[in-house]
């Protein structure tokens, strides 16, 4: 079965990203396909590579990147939400005149259409928020 996952909150502040990760991992382990993980609202903040969480805590961003690499996940950060919150890749930095970028490994920035498309392709849409 095909799943699309939506994450609406940033790392650490709310449990949304944690539960979404555990669900995604379990779905992949059960042999399902996760067609896309879409990060919306403050969820875009899961896609920065600049976090340094305490060593005795989980690294939420790295964990997503690793799962994406292992399971071939498509991690998409919403461009409109990312612009409001400062998540930037090289293209976005150039377009918006920014002198730095911060996108994490295996994340990409794209439009809201990617969410709609994933919802159409997937058999189930799972939302994790506040």
């Amino acid at each position, binding site marked *: 079965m095909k799943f699309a996952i939506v994450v*609406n909150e940033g790392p650490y502040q709310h449990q949304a990203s944690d539960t979404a990760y555990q669900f995604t991992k379990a779905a992949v382990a059960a042999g399902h396909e996760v067609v896309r993980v879409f990060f919306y*609202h403050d969820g875009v903040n899961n896609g920065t590579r600049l976090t340094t969480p305490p060593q005795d805590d989980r690294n939420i961003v790295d964990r997503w990147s690793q799962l994406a690499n292992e399971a071939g996940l498509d991690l998409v950060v919403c461009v409109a939400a990312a612009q409001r919150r400062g998540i930037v890749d090289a293209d976005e930095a150039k377009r918006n005149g920014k002198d730095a970028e911060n996108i994490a490994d295996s994340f990409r920035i794209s439009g809201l259409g990617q969410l*709609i498309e994933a919802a159409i392709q997937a058999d189930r849409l799972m939302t994790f928020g506040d």
Partner: protein
Amino acid sequence: MGAIKKFMYVNRTAPHGSVYAQEGLEVALIGAAFDQEVSMAFIDDGVFQIKSGQDTSATGMKNFSPAYQALGDYEITRLYVERESLEARGLNVDDLMPLTWEDEDDDYNEKPSILIVDSDELAQIIAGQDVIFNY
């Protein structure tokens, strides 16, 4: 892809205090281009999103509420508003923006988009959806 799906955008948060109403509306407007069967539900404080007369100027925030007027042009014409949520808040349909759409199959007559439904009806409608967006 193939078959058309029933998409519902469920709005349960008040506007302005958090961004969910505004960014939720952005999803609905973008999603309209994808030719699915789309509706929206306004439940709990979500009914305040379509309260008439919003003016954010003194807060310095953006007033996105006029964008709900665009829903009809985007062919999002079924806006289910839960009667119990309205009543609990002392609101009635006259307190809401007069959101309408033009029916091209009926000589472009303007028709109301807002459909007041009670909890039991809304429960049935929600249960009949294929995809539900929550914020």
